[in-house]
């Protein structure tokens, strides 16, 4: 691979999944029209969902899912020890994701609800960075393949890898959408980090904050907006809680 006369080496990557739906890994095989070019950027060393080849020499580990059982902690630490760059890949890895909704309930009660009398090991859902050092977070439920492609190009060319700092509203306005607040719905676009191309409000449903908070958001002003529009604060809190990305703000609001 050659770029402007420079020889570029594909990056050695591995992909691992913990407690999750594996939808973020699946995105790696999506966007089929650019898949051959994407695959030329990476050297897949370990990716259980699509390959039976397993090697332990990788530079970048994509880690999907949150941590909810002790064997996962051990497995994650072993991956951290081998990876040069560890990426928290997707909302569950970055924030704990929907799995964190069970953290509000005593864990025995959660087990009883689903498994009756059976003993099942589980613990409150933890983010990857609660266990090991994380070098990069790629949020999204699921991650955006466009963003993953951009980040991979950055890693291969050793250039800066950044996420948008501004909120989803910016992208939503660029797509000329009608504001969901004007349609009487609470949308987390004003406080959520962009990078998804405002996919939910473009589909006329509220942003549910899967990418977590944007930088320097004005949270009190967002709450005021909900109040001014005479919308339900309980509904706002339900949305903010879904992916566990707004924990600090929820505490501050109540």
């Amino acid at each position, binding site marked *: 691979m050659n770029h402007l006369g420079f020889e570029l080496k594909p990056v050695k990557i591995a992909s691992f999944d913990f407690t999750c739906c594996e939808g973020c890994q699946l995105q790696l*095989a999506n966007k089929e029209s650019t898949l051959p070019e994407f695959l030329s950027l990476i050297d897949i060393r370990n990716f259980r969902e699509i390959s039976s080849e*397993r090697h332990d020499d990788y530079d970048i580990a994509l880690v999907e899912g949150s941590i909810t059982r002790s064997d*996962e902690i051990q497995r994650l630490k072993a991956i951290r020890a081998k990876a040069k760059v560890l990426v928290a890949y997707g909302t569950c890895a970055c924030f704990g994701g929907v799995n964190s909704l069970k953290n509000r309930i005593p864990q025995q009660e959660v087990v009883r609800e689903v498994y009756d009398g059976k003993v099942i090991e589980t613990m409150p859902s933890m983010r990857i960075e609660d266990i090991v050092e994380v070098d990069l977070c790629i949020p999204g*439920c699921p991650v955006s393949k466009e963003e993953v492609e951009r980040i991979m190009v950055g890693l291969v060319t050793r250039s800066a890898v950044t996420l948008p700092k501004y909120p989803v509203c910016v992208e939503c306005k660029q797509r000329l959408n009608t504001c969901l607040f004007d349609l009487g719905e609470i949308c987390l676009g004003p406080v959520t980090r962009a990078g998804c191309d405002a996919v939910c409000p473009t589909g006329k449903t509220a942003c549910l904050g899967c990418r977590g908070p944007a930088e320097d958001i004005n949270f009190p002003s967002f709450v005021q907006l909900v109040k001014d529009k005479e919308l339900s604060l309980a509904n706002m809190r339900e949305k903010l809680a879904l992916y566990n990305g707004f924990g600090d703000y929820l505490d501050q609001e109540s």
Partner: protein
Amino acid sequence: MTKKVDFDIDLHHLTRVEGHGNIHVSVREGRLAEATWAVVETPRFFEAIIKGMSAEQAPFLTSRICGICSISHTLTSIRALERAMEIEPPKTARAIRLLAMHGETLQSHALHLFFLAAPDFLNTPSALPIMQSHPDIVLAGLQLKELGNEISTVTTGRCTHPVSLVLGGVSKAPSKEQLLRLKSMIAERLPALERTTEFFGTLTIPQFVRETEFISLRNGSTYPSIGGQLVSTDGVVREENDYLQMTNEYLTEFSTSKFTKVSRQSSAAGSLARFNNNYDLLHPRARAAAAAFGLEPVCHNPFMNNVAQLVECHHIMEDAAMLVDRLLDDNLQEIRTPYKPKAGKATGAVEAPRGVLYHHIETDDEGKVTKADCIIPTTQNNANIHYDLHALAEQALQEGKTEQETEKLCVMLVRSYDPCISCSVH
């Protein structure tokens, strides 16, 4: 004549399947001592975490049960809630939802056939070497998968975790331009499906039969997708709300997924089950594809689930083209029925790519979820996989197969079910 051999096959975290499962086969003095399919996935407790959530948001949560069949999960919850709260979605929205289901199934089948199953038949560890050895075949697979994803994106806003499927209908209809593009894309990609069918025709499907009971939906007029009666090849017929009688979940010591059964020790769901129960409702093109593989109902060879998936791709391409035409003739204005939340309870049943999926949901008078139960296709297949493994290993020993050959057959068997393991535990 069995040889007096001792060996153990221990496959921890089987590759090229969604989720975490282990195969264990133990042979002592040429006799099968044990064969186990153990699901070790971490549970996420969806039935517990959904409690208290608004009906409006609940389908967005259950979508996250599965990264491959999120449209099915969303629509199953929506169907349960709409039945519970007596909401009738408009006809146009129902057509958009059906088309979305087709997109998801096509994407899922293409992913399984090319990326997960095909490498076994070509003796490669993944699809990557096949990209070099059979570039035209992989290209065909990518074209079908891309078409599936494009159908999902046009109908639901995104191919994984849909955004515009909502209670009462859909929040946004596709544009005429998008539908016209889909129409030509479907026509352009029929040759890719032909190439795929020819290619799979050259592969050798293992011969193995263990009689079982196949469970699927059936509505009597169209190949099943959203809703219908629950039927089995043993003649059991139940209504959607009686899903518990079609599942009878139970716990095992070695698995975090539950097991199910109906009339026998185990039962099976998925493409082959749908095919076996609804052969008469397949498009003639799909029936012709089945005939080319000698696939007829009722087929009891689980390896033929791969072929049944391919047959369904033919049906989907035809039906999707018809649905796109119907939507092109529609003004696409009436897409959402307003509703008031209310107390109720009902079951939604949908044919997800891997088989019939049930969500039972109860709501209070504010529309908040008070109880939920989700029974996943792979949950219904886990017992069948477990007992199949036993029978297959026995057969392999009787045929004098080596340890390596037996292991290969075992992994191919599990992959034939296209298990969605994290989904089965949820």
